[in-house]
């Protein structure tokens, strides 16, 4: 039979205080630790013969995605169902949104239909913040524009910690189209909060903004508790001695902007191949948030390599989202007095 208390260890005296999860930039290291600890408990549930607990019975979780997605949407749905929530799925492409309904009206309608929590993906950065202003329950950002993808960053972090333990000083490389990547931006916040030695690597034109960001945070001038990070287009320097290499999807739809010459040139210069990976540590983890363009940002043999934890990321994604739904479902005013209800 299954069951461990997990690798994250105890988190003493920490209470969750976020009503929404719109970005990871507001999470303290203690908040992140609590998510990791709660995820351990959810992993234990996923290993049981019956992977369902009644904790969100009677809660309505409405999932509305304005952008295409398989893994994030299904992952949130499975997570909510494992906690016994009622799940309503709305594909924006098949809803009144196509008739011109505004985001605010859609959110009000969802609330009137009984939603307690909304999981939302939107192509416009910041859209979930607007939803959070009009919705009385909790909003979970399932990805907004180029801005943030908090549940992805937290599942990436969980996966890294499961293999490496404490990330302080460990070299993590995020490789690829960082400019258009909400995954990269959210990972940047969580990984610097955990003290990782973070490297951002990609073609010079798509590092725009990241170098200025890195300069702003250099020498301990970043937000409290966040370390600095390194930005480079020298892939060999980035991969040298790396313990984690995360390749990002090259967003072909963004190629029109003329930032990159061609897919073939990108693959030749920045594709993650076995040869390039040889510069990293022999036990380095290979990660990818999916969906992959095999043969572009990641070689097919690297994607299924024994050091690849890409499918593990997907499994951990369900547990992390269960933890987030659980933690967010309880936040009202006040706090929970330890042991007040017993017997």
């Amino acid at each position, binding site marked *: 039979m299954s*069951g*461990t208390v997990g690798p994250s260890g105890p988190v003493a005296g920490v209470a969750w205080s976020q009503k929404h999860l719109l970005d990871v930039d507001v999470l303290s290291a203690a908040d992140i630790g609590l998510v990791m600890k709660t995820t351990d*408990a959810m992993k234990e549930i996923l290993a049981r013969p019956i992977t369902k607990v*009644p904790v969100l019975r009677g809660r309505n979780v409405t999932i509305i995605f304005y952008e295409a997605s398989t893994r994030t949407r299904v992952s949130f749905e499975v997570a909510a169902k494992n906690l016994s929530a009622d799940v309503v799925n709305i594909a924006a492409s098949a809803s009144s949104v196509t008739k011109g309904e505004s985001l605010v009206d859609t959110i009000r309608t969802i609330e009137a239909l009984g939603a307690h929590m909304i999981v939302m993906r939107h192509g416009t950065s910041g859209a979930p913040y607007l939803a959070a202003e009009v919705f009385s329950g909790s909003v979970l950002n399932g990805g907004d524009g180029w801005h943030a993808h908090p549940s992805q960053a937290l599942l990436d972090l969980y996966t890294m910690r499961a293999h490496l333990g404490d990330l302080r000083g460990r070299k993590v490389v995020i490789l690829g189209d960082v400019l258009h990547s909400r995954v990269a931006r959210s990972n940047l916040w969580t990984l610097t909060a955990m003290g990782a030695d973070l490297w951002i690597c990609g073609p010079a034109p798509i590092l725009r903004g990241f170098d200025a960001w890195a300069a702003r945070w250099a020498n301990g001038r970043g937000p409290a508790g966040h370390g600095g990070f390194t930005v480079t287009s020298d892939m060999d320097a980035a991969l040298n001695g790396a313990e984690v290499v995360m390749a990002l999807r090259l967003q072909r739809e963004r190629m029109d902007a003329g930032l990159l010459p061609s897919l073939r040139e990108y693959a030749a210069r920045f594709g993650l191949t076995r040869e390039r990976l040889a510069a990293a540590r022999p036990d380095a983890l290979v990660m990818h948030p999916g969906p992959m363009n095999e043969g572009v940002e990641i070689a097919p043999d690297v994607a299924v390599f024994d050091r690849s934890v890409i499918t593990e990321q997907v499994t951990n994604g369900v547990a992390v989202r269960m933890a987030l739904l659980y933690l967010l479902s309880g936040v009202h005013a006040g706090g*929970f007095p330890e042991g007040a209800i*017993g017997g």
Partner: protein
Amino acid sequence: MDARQIMTADEIRRAIVRVSHEIVERQAGTEGLVLIGIQRRGVPLATRLAAATEAHEGVALPVGALDITFYRDDLSLVAQQPIVKGTAIPVDLNGRTVILVDDVLYTGRTIRAAMDALVDFGRPQAIRLAVLIDRGHRELPIRADHVGKNVPTSRDELVRVHLVETDGEDAVWIERREGAA
């Protein structure tokens, strides 16, 4: 606040040894027994019951931990989700006799939640309940099979079980709830 000690370390030790004998006597041996402690103080108590049983029977019973947070009936009443402490069930429960272990039996709601959680792991042959303190005031039709000490209390009182593993001392205290007349 006037706290009054109702069990000393020695009394706790003797109660655990006695209950460990009762458990074995009731089962007519140790065959099929598994001890599952309810987080948080049920877990060290279950470990101590296993040690006591091993001392007189020479058999090390499996010990597990059960977190009942996800099965509580009061989650809609609490302001913030409690921190989950973790579940670890070391053996297949099908056909086993599960001894649920907790520190205090009061309303019975924790035990109701624990039984709901246990049946998600399989179908035990029997579930029995061992508690260090039974303080009465049940709200559900639940009783303990093995009790360390029965303590008549009023609802205005708090029973605090302290264990070395969690609190640095072995003692049971009773005190008036703050704000009670």
